[in-house]
């Protein structure tokens, strides 16, 4: 997030796009809901599926899945045409406006409404005017923006809109991606990414290579960017990757195109899984290493607003389980690394030295203060709002972006659109929540959400077990006949291994960041004859 959770009350309104906030980030969802319902703040929601927030919204746009860029362009078209944008901000702080404005010319409300499947083009005008009147407006998004082959362009479009409105660098504004895992921000910050060292320093740079060779006392660090998750599976499938060391992940459930993933894992010469349970993935492992759960750990985690927070030992280690850092160190030292970390604090001290944005953060400070990176020195208070004076690159760059359709179009064989997501009571691949009694009892099995019109066309009843298939695979699952998505669009939560959504999803990727298109693929539904 460019801004902070504590700023929710400071916004005059919110654009929530591609985020089912009250189910997936419930505490932030409640904060937004409270401001809208109890304080009269304005709310615009864009989501193919009706969510709790859409019921409270001043404007709700149930767009066709994968058309975020079109509607964002539509809002910006109106804002520029009616001269409602923040001219002062755009001229002083940004560049590339003219080119973007030219691209936006054709995104008239009618043109956009046609792409997005919106009945009333006038609502796009109304919502754009409302956005321009909200000073400031905060934009919140989540995987409903990113998990497309056009994911990177979707993110850039949100930045375009907020720069155009002058909502960057001010309290209560900002582009606020809600991160889906408790330490996904930290894992990225720490360089658990194929192209960057800690603090997003590119591995391809010779200068960085020298810096880290010196810091780590290592020789011959590679300057060739590595493979992303899905590319690793493809490389394993092709036989180019021979060994995979998997710590606390469950790719059999979480990666797209499950059948392909399983084939890839079976093709490995050595597959090491480090986890707390014998997960769906661990069943394919050659070695399984039992690790400590989060309550048995000390260390730090970084949340979606860049706040680095301490984790403490709540429980004694599970009998036989070991800390993840200890296991990595033991393997490294057997391979000649000579590491001497005795506790997480030793590792954190090294992190501070090689991660400029964490340099000023200490275990002592975060016990007493809320610190958000960047925090370059120990006297620095941390950074609540990014881009206050200038952007990272100097001027904010508007990017001219054309709408591009999703990878897989519907056809006569696969006539429906399948979109996937999470629900309130479960988390990701269900490893934790389905082993938590109250959550598991509350929602014991998956379902497919289907519009009454489709149910009627296919002659399905509510609660009937049907088959859902794509070009990749097929599952059996119970229906929930409900008017949430539009006719022709079905929704599937991906937490349940018995009805695994990722048997169906498509593994095509965004060309830049390699994110898979979990949110759209074409599918068919069939009755199961008794």
């Amino acid at each position, binding site marked *: 997030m460019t801004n902070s959770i504590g700023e929710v009350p400071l916004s005059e309104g919110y654009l929530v796009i591609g985020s089912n906030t009250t189910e997936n980030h419930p505490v932030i969802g409640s904060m937004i809901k409270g401001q809208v319902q109890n304080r009269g703040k304005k709310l615009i929601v864009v989501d193919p599926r009706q969510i709790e927030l859409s019921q409270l919204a001043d404007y709700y746009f149930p767009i066709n899945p994968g058309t975020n860029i079109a509607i964002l362009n539509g809002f910006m078209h109106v804002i520029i045409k009616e001269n409602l944008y923040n001219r002062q901000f755009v001229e002083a702080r940004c560049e590339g406006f003219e080119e973007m404005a030219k691209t936006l010319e054709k995104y008239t409300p009618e043109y956009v409404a046609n792409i997005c499947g919106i009945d009333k083009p006038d609502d796009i005008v109304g919502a754009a005017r409302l956005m321009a009147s909200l000073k400031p407006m905060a934009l919140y998004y989540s995987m409903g923006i990113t998990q497309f082959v056009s994911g990177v362009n979707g993110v850039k479009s949100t930045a375009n809109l907020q720069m155009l409105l002058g909502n960057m660098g001010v309290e209560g504004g900002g582009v606020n991606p809600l991160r889906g895992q408790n330490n996904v921000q930290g894992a990225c910050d720490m360089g658990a990414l194929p192209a960057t060292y800690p603090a997003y320093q590119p591995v391809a740079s010779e200068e960085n290579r020298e810096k880290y060779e010196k810091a780590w006392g290592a020789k011959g660090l590679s300057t060739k960017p590595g493979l992303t998750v899905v590319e690793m599976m493809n490389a394993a499938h092709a036989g180019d990757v021979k060994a995979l060391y998997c710590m606390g*992940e469950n790719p059999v459930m979480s990666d797209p195109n499950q059948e392909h993933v399983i084939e890839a894992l079976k093709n490995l010469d050595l597959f090491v899984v480090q986890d707390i349970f014998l997960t769906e993935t661990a069943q394919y492992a050659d070695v399984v290493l039992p690790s400590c759960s989060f309550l048995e750990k000390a*260390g730090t985690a970084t949340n*979606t607003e860049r706040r680095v927070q301490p984790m403490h030992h709540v429980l004694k280690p599970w009998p036989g389980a070991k800390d993840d850092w200890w296991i990595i160190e033991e393997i490294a030292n057997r391979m000649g690394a000579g590491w001497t970390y005795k506790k997480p604090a030793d590792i954190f001290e090294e992190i501070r030295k090689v991660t400029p944005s964490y340099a000023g953060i200490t275990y002592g400070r975060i016990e007493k203060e809320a610190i958000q990176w960047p925090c370059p020195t120990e006297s620095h208070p941390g950074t609540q709002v990014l881009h206050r004076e200038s952007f990272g690159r100097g001027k904010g760059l508007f990017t001219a972006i054309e709408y591009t359709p999703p990878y897989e179009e519907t056809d006569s064989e696969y006539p429906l659109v399948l979109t996937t997501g999470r629900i*309130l009571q479960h988390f990701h691949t269900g*490893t934790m*929540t389905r082993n938590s009694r109250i959550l598991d009892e509350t929602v014991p099995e998956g379902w497919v959400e289907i519009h009454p019109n489709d149910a009627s066309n296919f002659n399905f009843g509510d609660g009937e077990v049907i088959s859902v298939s794509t070009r990749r695979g097929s599952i059996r699952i119970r229906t929930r006949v409900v008017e949430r998505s539009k006719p022709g669009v079905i929704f599937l939560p991906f937490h349940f291994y018995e009805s695994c959504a990722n048997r169906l999803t498509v593994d095509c990727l965004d060309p830049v960041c390699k994110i898979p298109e979990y949110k759209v693929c074409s599918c068919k539904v069939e009755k199961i004859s008794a």
Partner: protein
Amino acid sequence: MNKIKLTIDGKVVSGYPNQTILEVASDNGIDIPHLCYHPKLSKSGQCRLCVVRVGGKMLKASCTEFAMDGMDVVTEDEGIIAARKLVLGLLLQEGNHNCLYCEANGECELQRYCRMYQMEEPSRQIPFHEREVDYASSNALRRNENVCILCGRCVRACGELQVSNIWGFAERGHRTHLIADDDRRIGESNCVKCGTCVQLCPTGALSFQQVLGRGLNWELSKESSICIYCGVGCKIDFYTNPQGQLVKTMGNDEGPNKGQLCVKGRFGFDFTQSPKRLSKPLVRKDGVLSEVSWKEALDFVAAGLTKIKEEHGPDAIAGLSSAKCTNEENYLMQKFMRAVIGTNNVDHCARL
């Protein structure tokens, strides 16, 4: 905003004109007994336990009475004590309070004030109306209205903090009682089980269903950590009993969540003590995952990775780090892949 000065119990203190007497007192370290007031919620002035004497005459509810410049406030004298004992006595008569059976025993606010004012067992002059006990309809929340003091904190918590508006009051006078949605039991309502109402309940009227262990409130130990689920990073206080079992969680006010939690943060932690947890390293032998010692497993992994690196080069090895692990562990994993293996093939589920 201009500050104001007033006298509380003979001491000159300062506050702001938009503050109530209770808030100014609290900011200045003066504790005024209260039940329906909670700093996170709107003020309702229902319970009247917080009465103070203003200007030597009137008794006023300090939670709703605004502080004014030059005000002279007394927080306790004989008359005030009598008024508070009357309030407490009525609450005790109206309900059926037996701390032996109560979840809140030891941390109950009503119990605390009853001890403070040496309350005795009520005389039962007022007819006792049995109210609803619902321990079964929800797998998350328990309700015993016989120990409810109708302070309304749960109603306001649900409407103002969680913003689900599930709880409400029905009927009037001595028939007033708590309902969920349109007069349903909590388990049949749209309650999302965030538990905010339980966290703010001053008595044991609302409590959690048992998750793992039990324990006397004063024997539990408390330690904070960060929720394992989404990226909000809620700070949670975890309570464990002397046997080391997890008992309950409470949202910590210092975290970005400001004390709130969702159903996962509240109830999604017993997996850590599930009998299905792995406790021995496993190595596949003749196609079967078999238990081995840590030494054997680690030697096996190191030898296997070394061999593949030598035969096929470092880029034939890939590592998946984890957004469920700490910064320290993620840092070490990427350092291992880069410095020890020699490849940049390291990623995690950021995109998934």
